[in-house]
Structures are given as structure tokens and as C-alpha cells.
């Protein structure tokens, strides 16, 4: 079996709204802001866009068309995609496919979500057997966290340090939902959500939109910004599994494919945006993405390796899902926007010095008996 060539695609422009609670702003308005910012960043005209992919979970069907008609972007092919929390990342890999197939030379990829209208934990369908047992998402991560503690001696303080780092990074990010540093004591003393996960270790319900314009190398020459390349990407769905043990294994498999396509290994990564919907997740993903050995995720955070300026991979300089916020459809593209700014040296006070290789990782969904619905990994180089 031969491996098909990975499409040569560049990032031409990025844009996003500030992630926060804006219950009075429609998803269309959020989307307009992100799309116009990305177009302006790229220096391209809206008529240059050859195709559009829109990722969203809770918005209405036809969200992409509804949003773009008021920007005068009609007639262009528009695909709406849903892959739970990985919808934005999935939209990006779909856009890459359009470029690779020669169906468009410039693709607008966007993601929108408004979650501030939800109350309490975001639940699965009420008829779902798992939800019916009380298996809410923080509980899913709590089970994995307990197992990690039992197997490797990981501590609550190590999980809490992820939230401390995330809030500190977000304080320097004008696009972040939370912009205030917190102490280890405050994280540990915040209300318990699902033992060992406290409130400050859970991502908030956030509204927001993000947009990324990608194009061929030729198109990049016509753009104001075209020096960040998508060197590799992979999307996978979870294997059937009746245990929760192997959820992070999906990340290891997906990242392995993305690394191979990019010809890059985990040791080459300078900066990463990782799916830290709940703080323990970031510890698991240090290991599964290959940034450290299995079981050593707690030590990795203790040593400050994942800090901006640390001696490992700087993880979630934007504040991640925990502090930048997690509007499902927009999250994956906000990760790409952050990495693009990092690789272009435009990340201001949260800049990772010398960043040349960035990795974005998103998980999506929890259909029972599957590891997860989706995992997406993108690798960017400058």
C-alpha cells in the first residue's frame, strides 16, 4: 500500500473573537467577526475563497450558509461538519482534503459555538445509557485521573498545577475567557465537580468563533501571510472499547500518523495547544503525544517543562480550553490561530521564544463503548 502525498497547504490568515460569555450575540455575528479578521489577516478578498468548511455542534443546520449570506459570500461550496469538540479541527482537515483534491486553491475554515445559554454540566442526550448512569464528562476524566493516580502516583497538586499554568498563560492572552492568575491553593479549594477534579480544573461554557484561511503554495504568494505551513495532520475515530482505560491511546495513535505525515517527531515540537477540557487531560496528553514517558506527566508539570520558557514543549500558551475557553466548534481553530501567531512571533507577552514547530490536538465526544468519537492532530511549521 502506498501512502498518498500530504497536500502542501499554507495558513494564509487567522482570526477569532474574544472567547467569553456573550449570550446576546448570535453565532452568526460571532462568525462574522472571526471571518472578517481572518480575511483581513490574509490580505485576500472574500471572492478569493473557493470553498468553505464550517464546524459547529449545537448551532442550527446550515450554520455556515446562514452565517456567510450576510457577508455576501453565497454560491461558494459550503460544507457543515460536526465531530463534537473536535468539529473545528475536523473542518480544517476537511479543508485540507479540498485543497489536496484540487477542488479549491483557497479554503475558509471556520467554527462557531454559543454555550452560555447552557446550565450546569453540558450533558449527553437524556436517553443515553451512560448519561443515565451519571457519567457526565468531568466524571469520565475523573475516572481516568483516579486511575493515573493509582498507577503512577500522580497527585491532585500536579493536576492543579495545569490549571495554575493555564490561567497564568491566559492572563496574557487578550482572546481568553479567564484573564486572572490563580494559585495552587485556590484551584484545590474551588468546589469539587468530580473527585479529583475541582471547578477551576474544568473548562467554562464559552461563546466564540474562530476562522482559518488555508491555501496552496501558489495562493500563499498572493496572500499577505503565507509562511506557516500545515506539515501534517491526522483524524481518527475511537476504537470500540468497553473500558475507559484506552481513551488517551486514541491520541497516541492519531499523533503517530500526523508525526509520520509531517516527518517530524515529538522532540521537534516547540509549542502545543492540547485538549485540556479538564486539567488531568493535559497530563495524560503530555505522555500520549510523546512529550514525556508514560506515567511521567505529573513530573513534567512539576519540573515546569510545559511552561512558556520551560525546557520541554510549551503547552497551551493561549490558556487552553481551561482558560481561553471551549466553544466546541471554534476550539480547534482557535488552537490553530494561537499556533500561527506563535510561529509568526506575534503572540505578545505569551510568545514562546524560537517556536518553529507547533502541534494542535483536539478530542471530540464520548459515545459509550468507543474511546472517543474523534481525535485530530495538526502539525504546523514556519
Amino acid at each position, binding site marked *: 500500500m502506498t501512502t498518498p502525498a500530504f497536500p502542501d497547504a499554507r495558513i494564509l490568515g487567522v482570526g477569532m473573537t474574544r472567547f467569553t460569555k456573550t449570550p446576546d450575540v448570535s453565532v452568526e455575528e460571532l462568525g462574522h467577526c472571526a471571518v472578517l479578521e481572518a480575511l483581513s489577516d490574509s490580505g485576500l478578498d472574500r471572492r478569493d475563497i473557493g470553498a468553505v468548511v464550517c464546524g459547529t455542534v449545537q448551532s442550527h443546520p446550515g450554520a455556515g450558509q446562514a452565517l456567510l449570506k450576510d457577508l455576501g459570500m453565497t454560491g461558494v461550496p459550503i460544507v457543515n461538519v460536526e465531530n463534537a469538540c473536535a468539529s473545528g479541527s475536523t473542518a480544517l482537515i476537511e479543508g485540507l482534503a479540498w485543497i489536496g483534491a484540487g477542488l479549491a486553491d483557497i479554503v475558509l475554515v471556520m467554527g462557531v459555538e454559543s454555550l452560555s445559554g447552557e446550565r450546569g*454540566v453540558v450533558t449527553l442526550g437524556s436517553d443515553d445509557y451512560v448519561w*443515565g448512569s*451519571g457519567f*457526565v464528562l*468531568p466524571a469520565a476524566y475523573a475516572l481516568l485521573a483516579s486511575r493515573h493516580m493509582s498507577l503512577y502516583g500522580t497527585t491532585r497538586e500536579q493536576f492543579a498545577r495545569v490549571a495554575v499554568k493555564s490561567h497564568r498563560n491566559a492572563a496574557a492572552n487578550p482572546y481568553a475567557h479567564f484573564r486572572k492568575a490563580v494559585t495552587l491553593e485556590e484551584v484545590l479549594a474551588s468546589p469539587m465537580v468530580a473527585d479529583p477534579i475541582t471547578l477551576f480544573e474544568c473548562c467554562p461554557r464559552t461563546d466564540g468563533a474562530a476562522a482559518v484561511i488555508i491555501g496552496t503554495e501558489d495562493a500563499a504568494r498572493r496572500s499577505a501571510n503565507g509562511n506557516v505551513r500545515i506539515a501534517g495532520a491526522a483524524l481518527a475515530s475511537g476504537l470500540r472499547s468497553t473500558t475507559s482505560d484506552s481513551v488517551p491511546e486514541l491520541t497516541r495513535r492519531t499523533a503517530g500518523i500526523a508525526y509520520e505525515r509531517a516527518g517530524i517527531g515529538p522532540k521537534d515540537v516547540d509549542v502545543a495547544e492540547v485538549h485540556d477540557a479538564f486539567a488531568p487531560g493535559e497530563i495524560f496528553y503530555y505522555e500520549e503525544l510523546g512529550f514525556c514517558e508514560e506515567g511521567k506527566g505529573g513530573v513534567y508539570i512539576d519540573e515546569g517543562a510545559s511552561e512558556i520558557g520551560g525546557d520541554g514543549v510549551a503547552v497551551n500558551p493561549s490558556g487552553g480550553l481551561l482558560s481561553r475557553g471551549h466553544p466546541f466548534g471554534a476550539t480547534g481553530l482557535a488552537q490553530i490561530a494561537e499556533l500561527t501567531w506563535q510561529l509568526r512571533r506575534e503572540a505578545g507577552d505569551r510568545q514562546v521564544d524560537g517556536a518553529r514547530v507547533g502541534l494542535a490536538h483536539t478530542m471530540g465526544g464520548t459515545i459509550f463503548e468507543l474511546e472517543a468519537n474523534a481525535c485530530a492532530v495538526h502539525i504546523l511549521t514556519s
Partner: protein
Amino acid sequence: MAPPGFEVPYRLGWVDLDDGVRVFGRVLSADGADPMVGDRMALTTTVIRSNDEGGPIQGHAFTTS
């Protein structure tokens, strides 16, 4: 923290049966002590949550003996 109809706190876990099957379910403690990984469990039933009318919904659970 839980969806409507659940009394908090409650414990969830994966339990390995002797023949190798792993089953998800509510975990109870017979003596108030936290169940630990490796503890021997017994099958029982419990109220999982209440329905829209406030009536109990029963389900399987595992308990320390």
C-alpha cells in the same frame, strides 16, 4: 456536580468480573470508607436517579463487602 435527578455525591467505577468482563456502574461503600482500586466488590442494586415525576430509577451497582 450532576445533571437534574441525581443526588450528589455518587461514585462511578469500572469493575472487573472474575471471568474478565469489565462493567461500568455505580460504586457503593458498605462501611463509609472510600473504595480503592483492587477492592473486592459485590453486585447489588441502588437508586441511580429520580425520573421527571420524582420516582426512583433503579439500576445495578457494586459495593464493598
